[in-house]
Each structure stands twice: as C-alpha cells, then as structure tokens.
C-alpha cells in the first residue's frame, strides 16, 4: 500500500459522489471531510465537470416552441428590478408649442421636466439599491444555509461517534504520546467487523501550514499502511473517521506522524502518538 493507493481510494469516493451514487452514510462521511478539505472540494468540482458530460449520452430533443415563450413570460412576471423599472417609467414629452408660452410658464415647464427626470433617476437608484439589497440578502441566506449544512454534518459526525461508542462490537484503544509529543493523548474506537474506526486526539502540537498529521495502520509483519490525513485545532484536538484496511484489522496497531500535506507513502517523521504495541 503506498501513496498512490491512498490517493486513489479518496478519488474513488469523490468520483462516485460526483454521480451522487454513494450510499447515505458514506456520502455523509465524505461531506464532513469535504467541509474541511479545500483540495478534495476542488477535486470534486473536477469530477462533477466530468459527470456533466454524461448528459451528452442522451439524445438531444427539441421541446415544443411554446415552452420558450412560457419560460420567458414566467421569468418576466418575477419582478427583477433594473429592467422592469426602465420599462415602466415613461419618458416625459415636452410640449412642442412652447415658444408661444410666456417665460414663466416655460420656466415652470422646464422645472417640471427637470423634476421628472430627477424623479426618474431617484426611482431608478432606489430600485438599484433595493436590487442590491435583495442580492445581499440572498447571499447571506446561502451563506447561512451553508453554515447550517456544516453544522448538520458536525452533528451527524457526533451521532456516528456516539453510536459507535455505544455499540457492543466496538473496541476501544488508548493512544499515548511519544517523547516527541508528551502531552498528546488519543482514543481510537473501531468496529472490527465493519472496519469502521474513529480517532479522537488531544494535545497534539499545532499543525504547521505545509504539513498534516497522517494515520498509519501497522499490520503484523507488514509495512505501515497510510490512513487519513488530518489537522488539529488549537487544543491539538481532532476527530477523524475512516476505514481500517482489511489486512490491519487483526492485532491492530496504529500510529500518527506529521507528514507533508499531500501525504506520504511511508512514515517520514517521528511518531507522535501510538497505540501500545503488542
């Protein structure tokens, strides 16, 4: 198992996620990861672009001619400020016979026209402001929705953790900090049947900008197999969930090292946290 393998595993999920074909739990775990990983988000966007191409497999077909008019009329009826205001406000027309009028009347007419023009400009600007306000509110709403989705993901993750902690099949393993990270502690819970595991850490040193922590599964008599990459918060805490490779499930030993951001095929740093090796 090397770096390419791990990279590919990630890509497998992303490609299937772009097709919306992952099962609910898997999709939720990936979403939780995506919320924290810009690199995977960018990769997913690329997969979605590829997925979009599948639309070409359908034979293009022409909708009825009335549909175009129906759609445009429906769009028109939904008030969209700038265009509508330009159409609704009539341009003032100056009377032609003005040279017969006494000066006072001419001035009055001129004032009225200027007033109208100002009125038109004021109304247009007000519409413009209202439109901007609507755009701003819409943006805020989207942002709030995104936050809510992130929050929901976090809750789901917690629920998963609790469910796992309560499960009878779940095994628990305490990880201890090495001399490299004496204050670090960790707990790894996992279900040996499904291979699903969850790591919680505390007191790990802050993650440098160009590095991330990497989980290693060390099967007996094997080279370490790379697991998830993760970063920690200010207190050195992180919660990472993932699958334990089949080969590593028996006599499980795990270790955490600090690796370059893109991950390593074999551990390159000292061990920060590890399970008691047997």
């Amino acid at each position, binding site marked *: 198992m090397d770096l390419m393998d791990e990279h590919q595993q990630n*890509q497998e999920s992303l490609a299937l996620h772009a097709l919306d074909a992952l099962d609910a739990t898997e999709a939720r775990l990936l979403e939780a990861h995506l919320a924290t990983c810009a690199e995977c988000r960018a990769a997913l966007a690329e997969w979605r672009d*590829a997925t979009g191409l599948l639309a070409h497999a359908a034979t*293009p077909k022409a909708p009825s001619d009335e549909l175009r008019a129906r759609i445009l009329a429906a769009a028109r009826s939904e008030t969209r400020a700038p265009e509508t205001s330009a159409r609704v406000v009539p341009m003032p027309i100056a009377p032609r016979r003005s040279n017969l009028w006494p000066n006072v009347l001419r001035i009055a007419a001129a004032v009225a026209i200027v007033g109208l023009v100002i009125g038109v400009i004021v109304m247009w600007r007000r519409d413009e402001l209202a439109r901007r306000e609507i755009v701003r509110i819409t943006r805020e709403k989207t942002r709030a929705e995104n936050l809510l989705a992130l929050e929901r993901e976090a809750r789901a993750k917690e629920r998963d953790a609790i469910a796992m902690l309560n499960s009878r099949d779940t095994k628990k393993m305490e990880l201890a900090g090495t001399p490299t990270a004496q204050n670090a502690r960790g707990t790894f819970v996992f279900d040996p049947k499904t291979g699903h595991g969850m790591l919680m850490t505390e007191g790990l040193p802050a993650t440098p900008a160009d590095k991330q922590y990497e989980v290693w599964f060390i099967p007996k008599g094997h080279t370490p197999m790379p697991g998830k990459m993760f970063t920690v918060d200010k207190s050195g805490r992180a919660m990472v969930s993932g699958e334990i490779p089949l080969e590593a499930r028996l006599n499980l030993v795990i270790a955490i090292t600090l690796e370059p951001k893109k991950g390593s095929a074999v551990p390159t740093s000292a061990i920060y946290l590890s399970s008691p090796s047997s």
Partner: protein
Amino acid sequence: MRAEPSKSSDGDLLRALARGDQTALAGIYDRYRLILFGLVMRILHDRTEAEDVLQETFLQVWRRAGDFDEARGRAFTWLVTIARSRALDRLRASASRGRVASEAARLPHDEVGDAAEDAVRSEQGKVVREALAELPSEQRRALFLAYFEGLTQTEIAARLGDPLGTVKTRMRSGMIKLRELLHDKLGNSM
C-alpha cells in the same frame, strides 16, 4: 447593458442573467434547450413532465444565476446539474406513484447513439459519445443507471446482480475515462 447572446460565453450570459437581463435568459435557453430537454426526457420518458421540468430548470437558473461561481466549475455543469436533479426529483415522485419507473424499465437504456440524430448533436457531444461507446458495456451501464436513474452504488449492484465492489470499480474506471476526455480532447475551455 445587454449581453449579445450568440457571441457571449456561458459565464457572460449567466452574469447578465444575474443582473436581470432577459435576453441572456433567452440566449442560454436557445443554447442548451436541446441537450437539457434530451437529458430530462431520457430521465422521465414523458414530454409533459419533461417540459415542466425544463421550465422549472430555467426559472431556477433565472432566479439563482447570482449563485453561479465560475471558479467552482463550468457553467454547463451547473445547468446540467440543476436539470438532472430536478428531473430525478420528479422521477422519484412519480416512481413512488408507480408509473414512470416501469415505463422506463422497458426502454433500452444502454443505447449510445442514433445515427439519424447525430446531425443535430454538438461536436462536444460527439466526442463524449464516442468515448462512452468505447467503454466496456457493463461500465457504461453502471454509469447510466447512476446518472439517468439516480441509483446509488448499492442499488446498482442489486439491479445488476453484481458484487458492490465490482460495481464501484466499474463506475470509477468509467469516470476516470470521462475525466481524461475532459482534459485531453475537450480542454477546460468549454
């Protein structure tokens, strides 16, 4: 300020749309109605339903054009994603009423092209269909079940009677091929 629909890029049209320019909406409609209607027809197999979905799609595009972010993906992807998810929502609603699903199941799903229709299809579509035709049929089948019927990997495995792992591998291989195509033959400028 209006965008000139025939010359503008998709991004320009969507930005004009976000400003409330109806000419841009007509421009986007004219540019993508065939491919999007083909897509929703393939999913729903019913003209009336498909036209409803196409209308919903373009109205959503009209309302939400401001959300489109060119940095996050292609305009084509954005449009196709809206149309597909609306159509699949409709499909699931009708399938729960037990109608469209049985109808859809009778139609051949693995067909890649019809020579007579090819004339109206775009160059980009042609490249994609040729590539899809080169995929092993079981890869194509799995991708189509996900894309046009909205099935998950587990549902696809059940439908085809194949192990889940096999289905995942097939789908992944198919997707890799599609992505290579995006890079090699089509570039990222589309």
